[in-house]
């Protein structure tokens, strides 16, 4: 590994000593997709810690019955901000950011299709996030004091009208999300264009890494779903500021319309978050199983199918509204339908692992954890798609458990897996393996401790979004376990942060291709030079790097 390393040092040698301000300025004015990607992920992790603390505060309040650590109004703000932050300021930026970093490298391009638009999108996201959090000091709430938005992350209609939501905290919510939404849209457009138009020679659509395919579908979902959210938020803004009547039931407006619009965005949003995670897993599992991904064409087909079907399932969030049996049946059916392509993927991942020489390095650990947790979350999701079941459990802690299994156990574990996998590429240093494994086990155990009992709590009848609960209803123990689990998770996050700091300072040098992987991002140095590749790479198969390493047994013979 010596010779490429030396080259790397001589080639990517940074300017030796420069003032901190200069270096900062470099990052601010950059249009380099790699720097932007790193900034996305870093910002996402910061917000993850913030939102995690908000969640921890809620769990602390709920640790014992009749607790009064946090008053009800603050609790409302906490769950609103926790949900909003996790979805819009953690999930989206980290996933889009990693797409930003990896896609040009994976398709063998110099940069994104529109580098400056890319920077614009990133800064929109940051400033939108700041605007949202500015509400903590800037907004006026119920009694004229500073207050964060408190209408829940989906801001159901009558609750957001001026009557029920005084002050302008809701405006902050609308505007903050809207601005960062613009950013996401521009980034999505960029991702689509890059993966369609910037592919290197030989990289046909059916040779694109699965991750690129998934980000492509994500991009399409973002540009179809997010404008709907923006539109409905504009309507809400008109209602609140200009006295319009979109959601005003007294003037024959429709409160259910908001729900339709919101969930038309909201459900694709779930897949916007999950699909990139699928992408990470589809890249990592083959590498650590030493096998080609099983059923590549089927994976692509399943991804596209998920993309389409996810646009037609939104009303399964609304069974309890009273849509009528026909609509309920339709949406229940489409929800069952979407579990088919998802199931295909799970089987393909397992098919990839079977018979492979599996190495359980930390990225692989996270990915297997992802598959297990996601299957659990998916199963409870299918259970919730059964209409009578949903009537019983809608808005209970069962739902909370379900989507945390999908989003935390699913998406977040995959994100951590992805970070552990690509960190060496981005910084040229290995992450500490032992700390990585500790991170995984702390997170995994803590996560199950926290959210597993929520299933039981939900079935026992504990509703969501309550700031406390009475004793002696059989809920005490479960809530306590759940709150204790948070501590274990915190340990996991601490491990991770410590690991990153430690590895950045004195991590083992990674070399260009530490995992012996096969996609193009490993075909350049780590970290890659600003121009990514010295020569335009040529993709000869789905695993271009395999072909280079094994000219005697190239992949294209088998495709």
């Amino acid at each position, binding site marked *: *590994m010596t*010779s*490429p390393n030396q*080259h790397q040092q*001589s080639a990517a040698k940074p300017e030796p000593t420069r003032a901190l301000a200069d270096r900062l300025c470099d990052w*601010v*004015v950059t*249009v*380099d997709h790699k720097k932007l990607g790193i900034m996305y992920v870093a910002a996402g992790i910061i917000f993850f810690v913030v939102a995690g603390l908000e969640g921890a505060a809620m769990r602390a309040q709920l640790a014992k019955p009749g607790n009064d650590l946090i008053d009800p109004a603050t609790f409302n703000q906490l769950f609103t901000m926790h949900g909003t932050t996790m979805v819009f300021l953690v999930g989206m930026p980290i996933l889009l950011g990693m797409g930003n970093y990896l896609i040009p490298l994976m398709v063998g391009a*110099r*940069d994104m299709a529109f*580098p*400056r*638009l890319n*920077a*614009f999108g990133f*800064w*929109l996201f940051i*400033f939108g996030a700041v605007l949202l959090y*500015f509400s903590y000091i*800037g*907004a006026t709430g119920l009694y004229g004091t500073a207050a964060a938005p408190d209408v829940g992350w989906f801001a159901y209609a009558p609750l957001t009208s001026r009557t029920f939501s005084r002050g302008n905290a809701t*405006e902050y919510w609308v*505007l903050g999300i809207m*601005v960062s939404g*613009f*950013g996401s849209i521009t980034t999505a457009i960029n991702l689509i264009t890059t993966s369609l138009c910037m592919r290197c*020679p030989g990289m046909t659509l059916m040779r694109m890494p699965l991750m690129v395919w998934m980000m492509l579908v994500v991009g399409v979902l973002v540009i179809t779903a997010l404008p709907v959210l923006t539109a409905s938020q504009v309507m809400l*803004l008109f209602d609140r*500021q200009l006295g319009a009547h979109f959601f005003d039931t007294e003037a024959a407006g429709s409160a259910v319309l908001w729900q339709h619009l919101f969930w038309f965005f909201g459900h694709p949003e779930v897949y916007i978050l999950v699909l990139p995670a699928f992408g990470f897993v589809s890249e990592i599992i083959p590498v650590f199983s*030493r*096998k*080609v991904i*099983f059923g590549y064409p089927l994976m692509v087909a399943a991804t596209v199918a998920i993309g389409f079907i996810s646009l037609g399932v939104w009303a399964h969030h609304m069974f309890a509204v009273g849509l009528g049996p026909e609509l309920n049946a339709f949406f229940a059916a489409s929800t069952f339908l979407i579990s088919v392509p998802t199931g295909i993927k799970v*089987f393909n991942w397992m*098919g990839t692992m*079977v018979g*492979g*020489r599996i190495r359980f390095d930390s990225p692989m650990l996270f990915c297997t954890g992802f598959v297990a947790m996601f299957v659990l979350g998916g199963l409870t999701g299918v*259970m919730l798609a059964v209409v009578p*079941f949903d009537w019983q459990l809608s808005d209970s802690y069962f739902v909370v458990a379900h989507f945390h299994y999908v989003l935390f156990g699913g998406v977040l574990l995959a994100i951590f897996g992805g970070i552990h996998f690509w960190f060496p590429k981005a910084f040229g240093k290995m992450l500490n393996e032992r700390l990585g494994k500790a991170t995984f086990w702390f997170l995994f155990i803590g996560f199950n401790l926290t959210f597993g009992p929520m299933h039981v709590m939900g079935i026992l009848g504990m509703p969501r979004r309550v700031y406390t609960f009475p004793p002696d209803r059989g809920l005490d123990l479960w809530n306590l376990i759940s709150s204790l689990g948070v501590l274990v998770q915190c340990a996991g996050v601490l491990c991770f942060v410590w690991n990153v700091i430690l590895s950045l300072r004195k991590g083992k040098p990674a*070399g*260009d291709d*530490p*995992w*012996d992987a096969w996609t193009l991002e490993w*075909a*350049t140095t780590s970290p890659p*030079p*600003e*121009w990514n*590749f*010295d*020569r*335009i790479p*040529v993709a000869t198969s789905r695993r271009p790097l395999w072909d*280079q390493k094994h000219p005697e047994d190239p992949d294209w*013979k*088998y*495709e």
Partner: protein
Amino acid sequence: MNEVHQHEVPYLRGVPRPTSGPMFAALGLTLLFAGMVTTIAVSVVGVTVFLLGLIVWWRTCLPEESVHQLPAGCEIPLPLGAAASAVAVAGPRHVLPLEVHPYRAGVSGGLIGGVSMAAVACAWGLVEHSSIWLPINLLAGTVSPAVVGASEADLSRLEIAWLMLALMIHLFMSVFVGLLYAVCLPIMPRRPILFGGVITPVFITGIAWSTMGVVNPALEQFISWPWFGASQLAFGMVCGWWVSRSARIPAMASFGLGERMGVERSRGGDR
């Protein structure tokens, strides 16, 4: 990009020149919106900053994209040697499973298993409730809400619509599970009968036991779990046995493209 001679020409080392335009444009836009919740002055500042940002931005790409030419340093060789990597494992490629059961076996196995399952279920109806229609009607209750409210006397009678419904569900599920067996059995370690015949039915019975109350309350009212388990076992055993005794054929995934397309004669005989 010049795609004609990409091999000869070194990669164009131009990267877009960094610019603060986008950042200011974004800041301006945000301030513009922030002005709505604070004061109009903020919006005015926002518009100004936004326009400034746009001008800076456009100056970098109009009339021509300004590109920062990097010095052509030494070439970085692509990491070619797999042996250099500490974790590299040389070895033949795997596409597993190499052999699978034909789908036909799955379908027929599912059908046969379904018949034996139905036989056991009807036997239960006869022995415990002296009606072979009861289990059938109960199955229909999975999708038809009318069944849920029906009395036992109703459930013991023949109802054509429910019979058809139950038959459809049963047929679909049997074939579906049979296919799953055909696909999954070769993946499972060694003993197909053990896995397909015992473990899976027990597993399914367990899941059904815990969720039946919400999915099909009518069924839960009447169900006898030993019999339910027995009927699952009957299906699993028969279907698993049938599938595993069918001849295996090489999996398509291990074929080259030509063979898959049918250009060459496939090795697996009929499929």
